[in-house]
């Protein structure tokens, strides 16, 4: 059963062969260039591409002087140039982990006439369990915007009561 309240599917036709998309995803120096938006710097700590392999990134908001944890997870399935599945509910070697945002991402790459059809399906916990993620805006430099947005939204709710 799909749940529109806790699941996302994002698809793009990427104008590059699958080998380039695969390299951009799986090679550290490439991955660090797009995973987090500029000017925040991304560093890959672990990218062990096999089931049970660790996946960890860190981010720096001060130009690379200090880094803090970003994503910590575990790969569940790797099919070269076709499919990457990872979850943040486990870390390296299947060790259970209680992340600040539980998700499983299913990435697929298919040929599409010399280009690549790229799909990311992202599964989250159901809505009730996701209440705590209200505070999760402090990721990827959205902090200020979302702080303000939350304030506006809270005021809005207060007005209506």
């Amino acid at each position: 059963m799909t749940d529109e309240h806790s699941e996302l599917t994002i698809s793009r036709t990427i104008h590059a062969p699958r080998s380039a998309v695969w390299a951009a995803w799986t090679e550290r120096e490439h991955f660090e260039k797009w995973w987090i938006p500029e000017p925040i710097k991304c560093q890959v700590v672990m990218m062990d591409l096999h089931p049970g392999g660790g996946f960890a990134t860190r981010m720096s908001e001060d130009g690379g002087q200090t880094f803090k944890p970003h994503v910590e997870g575990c790969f569940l399935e790797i099919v070269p140039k076709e499919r990457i599945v990872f979850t943040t509910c486990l870390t390296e070697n299947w060790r259970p982990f209680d992340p600040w945002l539980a998700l499983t991402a299913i990435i697929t790459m298919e040929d599409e006439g010399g280009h690549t059809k790229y799909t990311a399906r992202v599964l989250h916990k159901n809505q009730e369990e996701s209440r705590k993620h209200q505070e999760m805006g402090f990721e990827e430099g959205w902090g200020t915007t979302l702080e303000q947005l939350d304030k506006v939204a809270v005021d809005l709710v207060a007005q209506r009561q």
Partner: protein
Amino acid sequence: MGNYSASLDKAFRALSDPTRRAVLSRLINGPVSVKELAEPFEMGLPSFLKHIKVLENSDLIASKKEGRTRTCYLKPKQLAKAEHWLGRQRALWEARTDRLAEYARSLASKESVK
């Protein structure tokens, strides 16, 4: 779904500016004329009107003209969407996928030159 995320992207872009956030905060208490909204800001009216235009295009506010006065008011629906955590996640993954697409494309063109 494409429209949904595109409109959400617009909302987040609109919210990325301190002047526009201040305008939104002010409108929470009710409709305000453009003239009154502009007063606290040290910028010319044409620049301020650009900010109003961005907010209108992102569907966060609307305005109506009565006589010589244009009044702005909040449209809470779009704001509520952007506030929802899944909306934020969608915007995040959409932007991330766009960056990957762009990066892979440039990677492929570099490799074909070699």
